[in-house]
Structures are given as structure tokens and as C-alpha cells.
């Protein structure tokens, strides 16, 4: 961050007007203005993100009384964490959920490409319909889906019955409850992904398609050879966001499956474990240790994604 250096990756952004020669570091001749502009953001991030993370890290080394007050216990919480029989299962559940929700990225890309086809009637209407779930309250949406999924009286099993398939108790059968939750999560994420990918698609120069069709490329070939590489960065963005969101699975599980459902034993996610330890069991120190573990895991997964990105995301 020293003045005058070029940060890695800076070359990817458009060069500043006037070229590198006029580039100046922060504070060089600009007074306190830059700080004034970033100040509110830095303040917000520090107070509402960094400070809580630091406090959580500190609390993960403590044990709490029923109504607060903590004592230092060193690494006890972490020792307990690595031997917790529920941890592995919760990690697997969380990863399985994330994997299913990730299927929403290609689905969203196809849908966005369809919505972007020139001359499509009612494109705005479709886009609104796909985006609607994203602005609805997840807990409210989960309540509606709970009725759809209802094993005895749900519309899903009714529809399956019409084609001769006998449905199961989707949210109350081990295994299926996680899939049911993930399908809902996937559906909820579609709207946001479609909007981002649509915007990216519009930036793809139309001449490329024209040239390709002159060369005789089929629509499918055009999609794979032009669309996919050209929107790589946006796909990468929604993938990272989806993975981070997936690793934080809690509200859908809590609202759809419910705490008093016998399958919850087999369906808990990492954040659910954190919530259970922190609130109903009131072991806030242990809860903090789980939270830190989730943070580290999320950071690692995201770092790996950034490393892999170099392999498949093309600079445009």
C-alpha cells in the first residue's frame, strides 16, 4: 500500500486517465478528502464486522455463565469442537447443501441467456417473476414451501400422484429433508443470479454472435463458445456468493424443517450447530468457537475458488 506502487490486479481495471505517470498514492496532495469519503464505510465495517469478529474470536476461548460473564478456558472449546460427533455430519450436510444450490448457477445462466434472446416477448415480466422470490422473506417463503412439501396434503405429492409417483414426506424424511431445503435454496437464489448474469450477457458484443452464425455455429455452440467464456467473471462472482451463502445455511433449515422435527438430528448444518450451542444450550463460548471454525472454512473455500479462477476465468 505504499504510495506509487501498482497493486496486483490493478492492471485489470481500466488505467486511470492520464496514464501511470500521473498516478499518485493516497494523501499525496489530496489532503484528507479521500479519507473523508471512505471514512463512513471503514467505520461501519470496523464497528459492525471487524470488531464483532475480534470479539467472537476472543469469546471462543471463554466459557459463559447463564446470563453473561465469561471466564478464560484456553483451547477447551476447540478441543471439544474437534471431538464433537455432530461436527462432521454438520459439515457434510452443509457441503451437500452448497453443492446442490450451486447447480443453480448453470441453471441461472441458461435462463438468463433465454431471457436475453433478442425479440423475446414479456422479457421484463419473466425477469420480474424470477426475481420476486429473492425479495421475499426466506422464512415466509419456507412456510409456503412447507405446505407445498406436506407429505399428506401438499400440492407436490398431489402432482406426483397424477403421474403415478408416490411422494415421500419431503421435509420429514432423513436425506430428503436436506434435498428439499437445498431445492428451495436453489430456487431462492435464481433471481439474483439471473439479474447479474443478464447484465453480463448484455455486455457481450453482438458482432461475435453474428460472426459465429455466419461461420455456421449452432445456438448451442454459440452459447458454449461465446456466452460462457464472455461472462466468466460474472459466473465466478455468483459462484463465490452462492458458496458463501450456502455455507451459512440456517434460516431455511430452521423454518422449513423446524427444531422439533425428528429428522433435524440428521439434517443440522454448521450454522445450526452454532445457533444451538449459542442460544438454546446457552454455551456462547463454544458457539463462538464454531463460528470461528465456519469463518476459517469459508475463507479457505473462497481462497481455493480464487486460485482456481485463474484457470478458467478469461480476462475480457
Amino acid at each position, binding site marked *: 500500500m505504499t504510495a506509487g506502487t501498482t497493486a496486483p490486479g490493478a492492471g485489470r481495471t481500466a488505467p486511470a486517465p492520464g496514464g501511470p505517470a500521473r498516478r499518485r498514492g493516497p494523501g499525496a496532495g489530496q489532503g484528507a478528502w479521500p479519507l473523508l469519503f471512505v471514512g463512513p464505510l471503514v467505520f461501519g465495517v470496523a464497528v459492525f464486522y471487524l470488531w464483532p469478529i475480534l470479539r467472537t474470536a476472543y469469546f471462543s476461548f471463554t466459557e459463559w455463565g447463564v446470563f453473561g460473564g465469561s471466564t478464560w478456558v484456553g483451547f477447551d472449546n476447540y478441543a471439544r469442537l474437534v471431538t464433537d460427533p455432530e461436527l462432521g455430519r454438520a459439515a457434510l450436510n452443509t457441503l451437500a447443501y452448497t453443492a446442490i444450490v450451486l447447480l443453480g448457477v448453470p441453471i441461472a445462466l441458461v435462463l438468463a441467456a433465454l431471457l436475453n434472446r433478442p425479440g423475446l416477448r414479456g422479457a421484463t415480466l419473466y425477469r420480474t417473476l424470477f426475481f420476486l422470490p429473492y425479495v421475499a422473506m426466506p422464512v415466509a417463503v419456507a412456510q409456503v414451501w412447507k405446505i407445498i412439501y406436506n407429505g399428506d396434503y401438499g400440492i407436490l405429492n398431489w402432482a406426483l400422484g397424477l403421474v403415478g409417483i408416490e411422494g415421500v414426506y419431503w421435509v420429514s424424511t432423513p436425506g430428503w429433508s436436506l434435498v428439499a431445503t437445498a431445492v428451495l435454496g436453489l430456487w431462492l437464489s435464481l433471481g439474483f443470479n439471473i439479474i447479474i448474469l443478464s447484465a453480463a450477457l448484455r455486455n457481450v458484443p453482438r458482432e461475435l454472435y453474428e460472426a459465429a452464425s455466419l461461420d455456421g455455429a449452432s445456438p448451442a455452440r454459440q452459447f458454449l463458445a461465446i456466452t460462457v467464456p464472455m461472462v466468466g467473471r460474472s459466473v465466478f462472482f455468483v459462484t463465490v456468493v452462492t458458496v458463501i451463502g450456502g455455507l451459512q445455511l440456517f434460516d431455511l433449515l430452521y423454518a422449513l424443517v423446524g*427444531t422439533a422435527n425428528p*429428522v433435524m438430528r440428521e439434517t443440522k448444518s454448521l450454522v445450526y450447530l452454532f445457533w444451538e450451542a449459542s442460544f438454546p444450550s446457552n454455551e456462547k463460548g463454544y458457539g463462538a468457537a464454531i463460528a470461528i471454525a465456519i469463518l476459517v472454512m469459508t475463507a479457505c473455500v473462497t481462497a481455493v475458488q480464487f486460485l482456481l479462477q485463474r484457470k478458467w476465468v478469461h480476462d475480457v
Partner: protein
Amino acid sequence: MKKHLAVLSALVAASVALAGCGGGPGGNAAAEQPADPADLTAEISYGVWGENVAEATQRVVADFNRTYPNVKVNVQVTPYKSYWTKLQTQAGSGTMPDVLWMNGPNFQLYASNGKLAPITGLVDAGKIDPANYPQALDTLYTYEGVRYGVPKDFDTIAVFYNKKLFAEAGVAEPAADWTVEQFTQAAKDIRAKLKSKDVFGVTATLVDGGQQTYYNTIAAADGHVISPDGKRSGFDSPEAARGLQVWADLIAADAMPSLEQDADTSALSRFTSGRAAMFWSGSWDTKLIADSPIAADVAVAPLPRDKRQATVIHGLAHAISADTENKAAAEAFLTYLAGKEAAVTFSELSGVISAHKGTQDSFLTVLPDANLRVFLDGAENYAVPYPVSKNSAAWGKFEPELLPDAFSGAKPVAEAARAMAEAMNQALEKE
């Protein structure tokens, strides 16, 4: 009421032992009240839980405001499940509601940690008379000789049943002295007759705690959930297994919805939509049933007897937060809540059995033709205390994790019950 004094004392066996006879800290004088109630200006919060409380709490606040027009009371309704989670966090940060509902399993935790304000001052000033409430409930909310709560209401368990479905199945309605065997047979017979109409014999909550179900059948089998001194689990006894077996058998015989079905469609919805002939539940559900389409067909039968007859009894109280910044207003509101008028409002509008002397009859009017007196008879004649210890939540959380295996048939009942007893004893040792 006199019978209550004797019977409800069972309710407090554990807390009496802890309460002792110590004088406790004196000098908990009531806050000074202005001469004219209209001069008292404040904004206080009132923490309650439940689904059918909005109307009653609004009316109570409106009635209170007739005397205290300048005390604004903000009612905070929280679902029961999250109420305690929220309250614990609020207590830790000194932001509990000024006036709040308290229950038996949680009371000792809050009182022993100084989170509740003693009401001794109000009693000494003659504003609240403990003699107006069943003594056992009054004692339940006394910790180390100091009163922290005014009993609000109490509840017992009984069997709601749908007369129309019994008639349709050609099964005789429950007799007052029926047995667990007769109950099970009735449930099976109804299912056999009405399966084509998607009607179950019985429905009840098994996974969300046993208050409405197995706590009662365990007691009826002469077993107990927790030993009378609150130190050991009773789940590993043959009597407890017998009490749990009742439910495993009903599910195995398809007379009761499976756990999956019950998780998808709640017992209350199933019963109130006419898809189950019997519903084990507490007096607190009476209002919801009275407002449902099947209200006219519903009657109430006492719980069937096994080796004995038994129902779990429990009661709530109103308490004041120790952190309240408007003690005068909170005490004025508590004094109103402790009175007869508020008790009648709660009975009539939220359908609970109010604890105040001479108000129980208004509960009977919630569903006049349904023989609701069964709930009062249970309290007087065969009630057993709700199982509590100093940190009841620490072992209660294992019930929905370990007992479903018993009900679903995944494990033999005795084996699942032993696993539960082990987990519970470990938690009890830490208290």
C-alpha cells in the same frame, strides 16, 4: 379452592426444598406511586408468549389504561419456543421486558441470578394478596423465602375428542374412568373404521416435549420423569418404558400419525380439521379449538388411568425485571395484572384457567358444552408436578433427539429410554 392448596403442593415439592425458610433480603420496598394515577407517565414493555394472547393482552392493557392513562404498555409477543432464548439474551444485556411471563422450569434460573425484582414490597403494602392464589403456585414462584412472581394461570392435560367422529365410527365415547387400554382400543377401532376418510384415532405432540403426552402416561404407569428430589432421571425405569410404550404402540398400529406425518401437519391442525378423533393437549389449547370449525363437536374426557390416574400440572406467573427503569409503572401494571379483573379477561379471551381465587368458572365458558371441568378436576384430584430441576433446559433438549427412536420403532423403547436417562443424568450432575 381448598383442595388446590393440598394438591398443588406437589407442584412445588422441589422448590420448597430449595426455598427454605430464610428471610431473604428485606427492604424490597415498592416504588413510590404518585397520588393521582394519571400523574404516572412512563412507557413499559410486557413480554408474553403464545398464539392466542393478542386479544387478551390488548384488553388487559386497555383496562389498565383506564386508571393509568399515561402509562404506555408495549406488548411483546414471542413464540413460546424462542421466548426463552430471547429472554436469556435480554437478561444478559439488562433489556428484559419490564413486566413478563415466567414459568416453572425457568423460574429458579432467573430468580437465583437476580434477574427478577422481588414483589415483597407490593405484598407488604397490601396491593397484592398472596392468599388470592393457590398456595402451591405462590410457593413455586418464591425463591429462598422471597416472592418474585404473581401466579397468572395454571394448566392440566386432558383428551379433547370429536363426538361426530366417534359416532361415525360407532365407537362409544370415553367414560370418566376409562383405562389406557380402552383408550388405545378406541383409537385403533376408529382408525380401522375411518381410515378411508383419512381420519386417525388419536393425535398428539410427541417430539416437542412430553407435557401433553408421555409425561402423563409415565406418571399414570407410576413412573416419573425426574426423581422427586430433582437429582436423577426416571426414564430408565420399567414404569417409564411402559408410559412411552403406549405411544410407540399407537404409531405401530397406525392409530396415530407417524412422526413424519406429525412433523408435516401439527396435531392441533389435524384435530381441528376433523382428521383425528382424539387430541391429547393442555387447557391452553381450548380457545384455539373453540375458534375452530369443529368446536361444536368437541368434548373433553379425563386422561385414561393406567396403574393410577395422572395429569401434569403447571402454572405461569407475572414477574418484574430486576433491571426495570420504570419500577413504579411496572408495579402499578403488575398490581393490575394480579387482580381479579385481569384474571377474568385472561380466562375469557385466551381461554386459560386463571389462578386468581374465584375466577376459574370463567374458563368453563370458553367451550360451554365441552365438559371443561375435567381440567379443574384434574388439578384438584390427580395432578402431578411438571418435572423441573434447576436447569431444566439442559436435559430437556435431549428429549426431541433421543426419544423419537422409541416412538418410531427404530429402537426398542427401553433402549431409547436408557439412552435418554444417561444423557439426562449427565446434565443433572452439572447442576
